[in-house]
């Protein structure tokens, strides 16, 4: 395939992925919006008003960046894992496997599809958050940079999960038992300063902590960790996950007999 053919193959996969989540919008777009609005109402307005300040910020301003990041992470991940596993289950992934589309294009196509949903939902949640809290953007490059890289990283992770998944149960295990605890313990709702030295140090092994803090820094200018570490951490994870996902596709693991 020449470069223009590769571009056509890539844009076909991305367009198909975007069309997929738009077609089933009551399943893909509405629930995350409702969930996040409930978080804003309960943790931001009702409980948040009694908490007062967190890291010198009104609690709703503190929690909003974390909630936006949470929606980006979960939607990027779940879009790729459900779409790719669905294609495996219905065997229409074979349409791509028999075609001359290179594996790295297949990988990028699914990942950009996942990022489209993650960033789309993230953008809608950001607009909604303006109703609940006032923001003055601290750093646009940091905000955009970290949200793009985070979405990329979790789309890659979703693809790897889908490749290994042998049943629909397998695509919910990681989000339920790994992703959700990591998000909840990743500084979305609190500053790690509250945890004390030991648990604060333990929290540093949670990659989501770095992403949430870098995003919070970009939006409101406060962070528990050095933002450079956050970018380095997300970049490292993304490179490793990309290499693993590509290797799995090249080998045809769980895809070719």
């Amino acid at each position, binding site marked *: *395939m*020449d470069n*223009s*053919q*590769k571009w*056509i*193959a890539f*844009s*076909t*996969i991305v367009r*198909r992925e975007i*069309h997929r989540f738009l*077609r089933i919008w009551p399943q893909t777009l509405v629930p995350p919006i409702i969930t996040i609005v409930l978080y804003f109402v309960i943790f931001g307005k009702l409980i948040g008003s009694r908490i007062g300040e967190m890291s010198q910020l009104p609690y709703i301003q503190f929690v909003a960046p974390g909630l936006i990041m949470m929606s980006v992470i979960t939607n990027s991940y779940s879009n790729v894992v459900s779409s790719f596993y669905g*294609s495996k289950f*219905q*065997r*229409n992934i*074979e*349409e*791509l*496997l*028999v*075609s*001359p*589309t*290179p594996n790295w294009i297949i990988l990028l196509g699914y990942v950009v599809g996942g990022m489209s949903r993650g960033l789309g939902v993230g953008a809608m949640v950001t607009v909604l958050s303006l109703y609940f809290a006032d923001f003055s953007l601290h750093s646009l490059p940091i905000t955009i940079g970290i949200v793009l890289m985070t979405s990329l990283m979790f789309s890659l992770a979703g693809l790897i999960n889908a490749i290994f998944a042998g049943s629909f149960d397998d695509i919910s295990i990681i989000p339920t038992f790994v992703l959700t605890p990591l998000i909840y313990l990743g500084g979305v709702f609190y500053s790690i300063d509250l945890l004390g030295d030991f648990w604060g140090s333990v929290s540093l092994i949670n990659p989501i902590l770095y992403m949430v803090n870098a995003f919070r820094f970009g939006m409101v200018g406060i962070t528990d960790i050095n933002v450079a570490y956050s970018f380095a951490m997300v970049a490292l994870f993304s490179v490793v996950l990309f290499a693993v996902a590509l290797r799995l596709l090249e080998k*045809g693991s769980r895809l*070719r*007999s």
Partner: protein
Amino acid sequence: MKQTNEPALAICQLSKTYEDGFQALKGIDLNVSPGDFFALLGPNGAGKSTTIGIICSLVRKTSGSVKVFGQDIDKDFSAAKQFVGVVPQEFNFNQFEKPIDILINQAGYYGIPHRVAAQRAEKYLKQLALWDKRDIPSRTLSGGMKRRLMIARALIHEPKLLVLDEPTAGVDIELRRSMWEFLQEINRQGTTIILTTHYLEEAESLCRNVAIIDHGTIVQNTSIRELLKQLNKETFILDTREALDSCPQVQGYPLRQTDSQTLEVEIEKSQSVNELFAGLSEQRIHVVSMRNKTNRLEELFFDLVEKNLQEKKHG
């Protein structure tokens, strides 16, 4: 893309052993000429689908080589894939997508621009009588329509080699005939076709050459005409006008009565049907119709597979 006079498909010493140790292919050799209509026959589990899977990259070979129009799948699988269109046995499209989207997306995976893809999709959907169904979810199509959709999808990048794995399984007779005509037409236009089928009548009607595969080895690879020459005897069913009290006897023809108005007889190639009819006429028995008990190729197929089985049993 390299255009050559190489065989459409050249398989050399192809082997496949699955992870559970099952050896599906034991070093097969196979050549298919450009423009051929080729049948790959064999009982269930013989290795037909494994062979097709390797050609289209869904199965990883253990050893051997496969070339499609001269392109070695180990050296440039991308180029080889451009030549191949595959219609698998099982439905493998997204049941929630519309037929038109399935075709245009498939064209996109081959790097075909959207405008060209849309024109081709219209052409093939019309040829396969699916144009009216282009905008409905494909899960609502009938079984025959789904099969035709998979043929249209396999043709969307206009491959030089079309591989069909049981394309008419479960399709009614009328539709099967129309699919045969369609396949014959695209073969006349130059597309090489490899067909696996359980309907041996289909292979006999459509194909010029045949390979019979059994237990992972090719037991016969020749033209249909040559293969049929090997047929020494055929079994015929005769329907009589009168009800028969007992089975008639005609010297040299082992007749069997299967019901009051039906006889069965095996006739060797050296014998004449006229003599049989004369013998029956003398006994005032009138034959009103006559047909083969099984398809001629089917008899040969069973003979070959049985022979292969006996050879294996006796080492």
